[in-house]
């Protein structure tokens, strides 16, 4: 007699209990606090907020902890929570020219109003493992840090200093295309309506802003290697705090809801001009929650590549293929569908087995016939 395997329910319960145990790890060690994650794994938290499309440091930290450090899983947790949140209305567009800048670099001008501000960056660090960080008591401070000797490290300015965007400076001479004017229209919302291709630029930017960092990195990289080369220069990258302003229709005035940290990248790209437009620079734009420079830059490269049609360029490369790029950039969708292959497919496989066996039998018969 044969008894079919059962007990899916118990298996799932046990699996989840094991998961919880593994997540906790060695119980002789203190459980990691959300405040520690938020304070010390900031870039992980930032990525979760950016691709999770929800600015909440505490919940993102919780997601990182719950996901055992698997950031795509953490992004997924945040997305699933976000989708249930009621909407009160739309904030005013962020004004990044009024940012409390913590970092700002331009690759196009040596000096410019507001100056260059390196800020907290891995740039120019020697990628040498810093064993001092691994130490017990003194593990807090890198051996290289001037903090160790009590020096001033030029931390955050108290108030925003005037720091005009590089693209605005170029714009004064008409050397770069103008930033599109706000026509007041409600932008398409990819989280509230199904996307139909082709899409407008706002929809593209929304999709890229929550797109997978690794995917955009690879696509952006491909444009540099000649697959839709766009001669990019980093006009500016700025990272800092921006105020979120909400206009309350009932009250008729604006209130500040607080600040969010964002990274903005304005890529400046060559453009030969067309019959209507004289030669000038064009833009690729990237904006991401938190400090996610790699993502903001990749986004700007891909965004620029996707603008080929409007700029009268030729389409020749994967990064220019709007439907392809946008419909595969969401890592929550991608991971779900790739991983669904581990779900049972017995039924379909049985149908395929049957077909292959039948075709083999026919093949064999034909061979035999031919031999006779």
């Amino acid at each position, binding site marked *: 007699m044969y008894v079919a395997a059962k007990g*899916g329910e118990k298996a799932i319960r046990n699996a989840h209990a094991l998961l919880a145990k593994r997540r906790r790890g060695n119980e002789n060690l203190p459980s990691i606090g959300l405040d520690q994650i938020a304070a010390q794994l900031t870039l992980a938290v930032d990525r979760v907020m950016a691709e999770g499309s929800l600015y909440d440091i505490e919940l993102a930290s919780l997601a990182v902890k719950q996901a055992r450090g698997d950031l795509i899983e953490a992004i997924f947790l945040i997305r699933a929570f976000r989708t*249930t949140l009621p909407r009160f209305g739309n904030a005013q567009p962020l004004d990044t020219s009024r940012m409390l800048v913590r970092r700002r670099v331009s690759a196009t001008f040596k000096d410019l109003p507001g100056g260059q501000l390196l800020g907290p960056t891995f740039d120019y660090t020697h990628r040498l493992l810093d064993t001092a960080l691994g130490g017990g008591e003194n593990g807090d401070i890198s051996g290289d840090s001037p903090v160790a000797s009590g020096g001033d490290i030029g931390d955050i300015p108290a108030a925003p200093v005037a720091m005009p965007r590089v693209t605005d400076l170029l714009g004064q001479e008409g050397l770069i295309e103008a930033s599109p004017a706000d026509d007041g229209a409600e932008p398409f919302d990819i989280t509230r309506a*199904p996307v139909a291709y082709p899409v407008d630029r706002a929809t593209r930017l929304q999709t890229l802003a929550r797109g997978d960092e690794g995917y955009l990195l690879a696509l952006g990289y491909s444009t540099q290697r000649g697959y839709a080369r766009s001669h990019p220069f980093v006009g500016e990258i700025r990272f800092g705090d921006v105020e979120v302003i909400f206009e309350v229709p009932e009250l008729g005035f604006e209130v500040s809801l607080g600040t969010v940290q964002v990274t903005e990248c304005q890529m400046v790209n060559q453009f030969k001009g067309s019959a209507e437009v004289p030669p000038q620079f064009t833009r690729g734009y990237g904006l991401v929650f938190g400090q996610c420079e790699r993502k903001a830059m990749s986004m700007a490269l891909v965004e620029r590549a996707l603008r080929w049609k409007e700029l009268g360029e030729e389409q020749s490369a994967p990064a220019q293929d709007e439907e392809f790029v946008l419909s595969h950039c969401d890592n929550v969708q991608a991971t779900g569908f790739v991983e669904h292959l581990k779900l*049972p497919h017995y039924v379909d496989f049985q149908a395929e*087995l049957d077909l292959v066996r039948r075709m083999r039998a026919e093949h064999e018969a034909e061979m035999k016939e031919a031999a006779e």
Partner: protein
Amino acid sequence: MSASDVGGMPQITYNFAYLDEQTKRMIRRAILKAIAVPGYQVPFAAREMPMPYGWGTGGVQVTAAVLGRDDVLKVIDQGADDTTNAVAIRGFFEKTARVATTTSTTEATVIQTRHRIPETKLREDQILVYQVPIPEPLRFLEPRETETRQLHALAEYGLMHVKLYEDIARHGHIATTYAYPVEVAGRYVMDPSPIPKFDNPKMDDSPALQLFGAGREKRIYAIPPHTKVRSLDFEDHPFKVQRFAKPCALCGATGAYLDEVILDDKGGRMFVCSDTDFCNTRQEEGHRGEMGA
């Protein structure tokens, strides 16, 4: 959803069947249009669900939108109620909607399924909700949505016939064994989800309402009751379903879809019903196969 701060972290409570009412209305409107245009894929603003894309988020959203407090829900995956994903989805609705659940096809008012149609004939008060991974039947012939949309608009399905005919020329068979395309009510060519083509005839003239949800691809479509559903074929190669050489080893059923179970590493195998409720019911009624208890 509502959140209130208790001891730092928000306490989160969810609406009936998880989705907020606005989302349900949006999905419900899509369902109504899907029913009005049988086989046409209605775009809808699929939400992010607390389960992965590709694991039934479309079916879950459709179920959540139709489900009422008096419904009795059955969830199957591969025909079985106890497969892990079916268990997980059933548990989700037990938790979020507190509806009655069942493994009995006849007791259920709403059945969510992945990859099978129950063997037991459905009734006119039942709703069958399919989980759909790729709703576009033309996707593997033309990956671009912008193109396939045009083809549907023009009812230009020659491409599909060419593909099926090439199969015949090359293999002597139509090499599509599951997700076998159908024509609904004489108009739209539709992907029936990856059910084995064995199940295709059950879609035709079914008294139940059939709803299809594709979450990642953001599409909902439907087949109203008593609607003509024709599996695409050719006069000289009529549509045929798979037949199993032996009856179910447990309940002795013939004409049911069977799972192959490998018993040992010496070629030992048996065939048992994939529809566990059907098989159990038959065994309770006293039917026995060659390996039945």
